Structure formats: C-alpha cells, structure tokens
C-alpha cells in the first residue's frame, strides 16, 4: 500500500475525528454539474493520486488510480486498439476516472455500450471511517459479496473516496459511419426506435438542430452494408465527440440544463430547444417538462439554483434506505455532505 494512499486515508480519519466534512475532488470539472453545491471548506484533492496501475489488453481489463485523466487512459488504450466503452466526457483533458465513476457519466453509446456503471469491475475506496477497502476485482464476473463497485457510480463521492478503479474495456470498432437526415423530433424518435429494434451495428442515435444522426460501428462489412440499406447523408463523426464532451453549441449557454432519463417511446417534448440522445432515452431540455412520463427521472444537470434539490424526488421507502446506506459507509457524514440531496 502506497504512502500516498495512506495519507489520503489519514486525511479522512482526521476529518472524522474532528467532525469536519470534506469535499472530495479530482479534476474539479463537475463541481457545478450533476449534484447540489457542496459548501464545504476542507477539500480532499485526489488528482495527484494518478497513473495506470495495471493493463492487460488480452484480458480486456485496465486499472487506474482515481486521479488519472480520462485522456491518459484513452491514449494508452488506443495504442492497443482498445477503448473505454462508455465514452465519458473528457472536459478538456481535466476529467478523471474517479470523478467519472462518481458521476456515472457516459457518452452517446450508452444504450448499446453501457455506462461506466456497466464497465466497472472493481474499486478500491476509503470509506467515511478512513478504512481502505477493495471490492470486486479485475475479472469479468464476480458475485462474492455486494456489488459495492457499481454502487459508487452516480453516488457523487458520498459513500467513499474512490482511489482505484478496475474497468472492462473493448476493442475499437474496425469501421464507423455516421448517417444524417433532416427530420422533426417526433419523426426522429420513431425512426430511432425502429432502427434500434433491428439487429444492426447501431451504436449512436441522436437528434439535435433538426437533424437525426445515426452511428454504425463494428465490423467493416456490416457497417458498410447497413449504411447502404438505411441511407441518409454520410457525414463525419464530429457530432459524437461534441455530445461526449458536451462541446456542441446546444450546450454552450450556461442557462438551466435539464436531463430527462426516460423510455425511448415517451412522447416528445414540444420545447423548441432540446436535444435527444441515447436513441430517445435521454432528453436534454432547457426548461423542466410540464409532466414527467411514467418511470422517468428528471435532473437539473447544470445551471439554475443548486442550493435546492437538483435530483428527482425519492419515495419515502427509498429515502430511508438510501440514508441508512449512507450511514453504513459514512457514519459521521463527512464525505460530500448535501452533494446528492440536502438531507444526505
């Protein structure tokens, strides 16, 4: 166990001892995203705890310390013809793997390639009592004990300081083609569900600024043949990078940005300013919808009032379970208090 790791654990122990909460951060790219403002003065910077610790391309597994920038992982993988399946935002090279797991951020391929929640195989973390713990591992299947690794995805660092992450990776696709066509958002949604129901190498389907974009990726023969059948204009793949890094002009205004996670068949919003991603499962909106479709969840992703709740309301049963779970990991409530919910 490295000194740096022991030092991080000692910081958590000290915070617990004097009951002073910590704000854990890596590249600090997501401070104003995803969760509430965490008004805590003492910070725990893990961005220096970095580096790829283990990579065996033939096992499809890579391990890295939490502060490792996504871009560093991507270049190491690309050298071996592999990639992070979940296409996380890189935020100009600042985003770290630990923060990406804590935020459960993933790119346009989510319905087909999964999110980091789906790729994570194991984690090393420091819980709120300053204990260094390891869960999961470096193998593809592991059902011994509870799946604490996946639980970290989206927990925004409120359950533990993520120190190291083991991930399943995938080969880069041999070929990739992007098809575009002009449609209304309603038509786009209908087309997305239709295409996604076909056994073709679809790995992206979005609608923005009046255009439907489809991404085909995989074996060259299958991509080419499907592109011919489906038709549309062949364009470069810039749109996918713009969605992944949220650099597309749709995201430029700093006004409120709402994210609706829903079934792809939910009716289209009538708002003019919207972006549909994940084959219809993710709807980016500038104002909250009048009604939330059944089973959908709404999150104020960025902007707006981040002192109030920004996550969807939980029912009483889950609120109780989640609070007890938080206490199970962080009995003194020192890790990112209030970041996920005001009461947590």
């Amino acid at each position, binding site marked *: 166990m490295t000194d740096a790791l022991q030092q991080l654990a000692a910081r958590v122990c000290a915070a617990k001892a004097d009951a002073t909460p910590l704000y854990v951060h890596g590249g600090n790219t997501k401070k104003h995203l995803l969760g509430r403002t965490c008004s805590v003065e003492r910070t725990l910077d893990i961005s220096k705890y970095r580096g790829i610790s283990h990579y065996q391309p033939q096992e499809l597994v890579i391990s890295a310390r939490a502060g490792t920038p996504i871009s560093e992982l991507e270049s190491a993988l690309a050298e071996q013809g592999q990639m992070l399946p979940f296409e996380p935002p890189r935020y100009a090279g600042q985003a770290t793997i630990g923060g990406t797991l804590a935020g459960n951020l993933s790119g346009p391929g989510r319905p087909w390639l999964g999110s980091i929640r789906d790729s994570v195989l194991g984690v090393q973390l420091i819980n709120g009592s300053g204990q260094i713990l390891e869960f999961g591992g470096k193998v593809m299947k592991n*059902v011994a*004990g509870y799946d604490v690794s996946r639980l970290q995805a989206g927990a925004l660092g409120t359950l533990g300081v993520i120190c190291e992450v083991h991930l399943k990776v995938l080969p880069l696709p041999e070929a990739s083609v992007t098809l575009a066509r002009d449609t209304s958002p309603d038509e786009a949604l209908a087309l997305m569900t239709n295409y996604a*129901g076909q056994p073709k190498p679809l790995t992206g389907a979005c609608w923005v600024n009046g255009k439907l974009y489809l991404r085909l990726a995989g074996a060259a023969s299958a991509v080419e043949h499907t592109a011919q059948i489906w038709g549309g204009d062949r364009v470069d793949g810039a749109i996918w990078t713009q969605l992944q890094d949220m650099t597309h002009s749709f995201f430029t205004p700093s006004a409120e940005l709402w994210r609706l996670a829903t079934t792809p068949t939910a009716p289209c919003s009538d708002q003019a300013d919207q972006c549909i991603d994940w084959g219809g499962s993710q709807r980016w909106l500038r104002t909250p919808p009048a009604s939330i479709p059944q*089973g959908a969840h709404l999150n104020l992703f960025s902007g707006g009032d981040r002192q109030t709740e920004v996550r969807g309301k*939980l029912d009483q049963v889950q609120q109780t379970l989640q609070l007890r779970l938080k206490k*199970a990991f962080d009995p003194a409530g020192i890790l990112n208090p209030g970041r996920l919910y005001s009461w947590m």
Partner: protein
Amino acid sequence: MPHPESVLLGLSKLNNILEVDPKARTARLQPGVTNLAISEAAAAHGLYYGPDPSSQIACSIGGNVAENSGGVHCLKYGLTVHNLLCVEMLTVEGERTTLGGGGLDSPGYDLMALVTGSEGLLGIVTEVTVKLLPCPEVARVVMAGFDSVRAAGDAVGAVIAAGIIPAGLEMMDALAIQAAEDFAQAGYPKEAQALLLCELDGTAEEVDQHVEAVTNIFNQHGASSLRVSSDDAERALLWKGRKSAFPAIGRLSADYYCMDGTIPRSQVSHVLEEISKLSAKYQLRCANVFHAGDGNLHPLIMFDSGDPQQLARAERFGADILELSVAVGGCITGEHGVGLEKLNQMPSQFSEAELHQFEDIKHAFDPALTLNPGKGIPILKRCQEYRALPRRHSHD
C-alpha cells in the same frame, strides 16, 4: 438450503409475463417467470433476453436478479445487472419500492445494482423489467480441438487480441469432452486435450468475416480438428455437448461438486495444471468446463457421497480451487453466489474491514437479519475460526 427455523417464501407461482413492449424493447415480469420463457415470449417480435444461464429452462428471473446470473453469452451481452431497467422490491418491513426506472439513470444511489447479486439478503424482488435485444440475423459456431490446454488458452487470447468479441467462447478439458461426447454424440474430437466452441453472431457479412478470422487464428494455434456449423441444427448440436456437460458428468460419477471461481483468462493453463495436481492429491477425478470468454471456471469434482471420506475430500478439493482462483487474481464465485457453501472462502477474498462493510450494508436493509439468515456474508466470528485453521495447502 433454508435455515431450519425459517419460513420458505416461494415465488415460483408468480410467473406471469405482465407486458412485452416491442418498441421500447422491454418486458415486465413477475419474479417467478423462467429465464427461457422471457425469450420465448419476445421471439414473436424478433427480440430476446440476453443472459442465458445453463439452468435457463428452470431458473427464475427473480433468482437471476438475486444471483446476477450470466450465461455463455455474457462476454458480449452482459450479466443480469446489465440487462435490467427496473426492479420492484419489498423491503423486510413489507414496504414496496421501485428501483431503476424507464430510463437508464436513477436519481439517488443505484440500489438496483446493489440488489442485483445480493442473494436475496436485501429484499424480495416482486417485479422485474428487463431490456430485450434484437435477435441476431445469423449465428455460427466454430469448434476446434487442441492437443494442449495451453494452445487452446493462447488461441482464446489471440481472438480477443484480434478485436473480436465472440457471442460465446467456451472451453472444455479432455475428461469433459469425453463425457459430453458419450452423452450427446455431438461429434466432439475425443482425443483432444482441449476443445473450444466459439459462437459468432451479427449480420450475415459480419459473421462471415469473423468466422474466417477465428478459423485462421485457431489454425495458427495448431488446432487438431476444426468444424464450422453450417446451419442452426448443426450449431445446436455443437452446443448440446457443452450444455449437457453437467448431466454427462453425472453419468460418470455418483455425485459431483461444481465449483465456480473466476480467473484472469491468461491463467487458465496454469490453473488447470494445478487442479490436476490437486486431483491426484485428493484422489478424485475432476472435469473442467470454462466460460473462457469471461474467465469463469467450473471444475466438476466427482465423488461418492455414500463415502463420507470422499465427501470431505471433495469439499477440501473445492476449497483449494477457490483459494487458488483468488491467489491468481480472481474470485471465489463468478455466477453461482456464496450462499452457505462458500462462506468459509469469503475471508480469503475480503479483509475483515471489507466484511464489516458488507454487514453494515445488510443492516441498512435488514437490521434484524431476517432475510436468508446466515447466507452470503459470513458472520465474522466464523471467519476468525476458519482463519485460525492451519493452512491446508500451498500453491507450490
């Protein structure tokens, strides 16, 4: 195996398929619906449910969620946890809540992920919504025999290195090949030391391209025999041997003990060599089937439960295999869960602090330890006793 004083809660009669939504590609199910019934209901829409445990004709979706079951297709299509959208659960207090949702993200902690694979220790699953996948246009199997496990293991690595993710990739050792062939007459090469079954699926063009690539790789690695399925009947026949490996072993021996460790793929020949040494040491035969794509090894230890000494040796043999799996960087269970049987091996994978963390999670959901008492997570006193036992083997 229920606790002697417990009440059994049988959910198998809650077996209605509540809804199949072909457009959203989802199915809403009661917990007792069998795994295979989901794909059968979805087939009318050209869809199927990805995870396909070998027990799929009998096992329920509720049990699949509880165990996070996989199947031969899980390298490409994922485990149960990757194929769920929503789980309705009763807490131990009898309150109902819905985890997950219609979309891919949920607002707070991902309790659905935590409950998946929790062996029924955190709540009772009363309804499950799964994702469905479009049925592939074509699927073909490449079968190859090899003169050594090492050559077959290297061939597996080479397929992955070539950037191909097969739909299924299975390995069997000599004893498993012979038993399966006698049982199923699938046309397996009985003289081979190792057999690979590699299923490739996708569009017609893609499958042709990948079959050619995989065939070349197997030949380069010295395959002693090679066969490619030409139609679905032949594909089913080639799988029949693998899928009946367990009952086939059942014919060779009064009883068998199936282990479930997961190891890094590259360790397979080393681990199989160690297992054959253990087999000599304990004087019990052991056949091996291996989900080679994802590193999940199923050694089948043959014994006669009528002989208490053999039973005891089989249990020690099994425990040694699990500890070996952990020693090479793997884990004690890939898909069958811990239950009661592997409680003693939990401390070889987890520290005391980690086991305490598991206990605290259990307490958060079930403070009185009412659900499946005594399973999954060892009571720490018991591990200390086990740790105090003299080490029974070394990995020399």
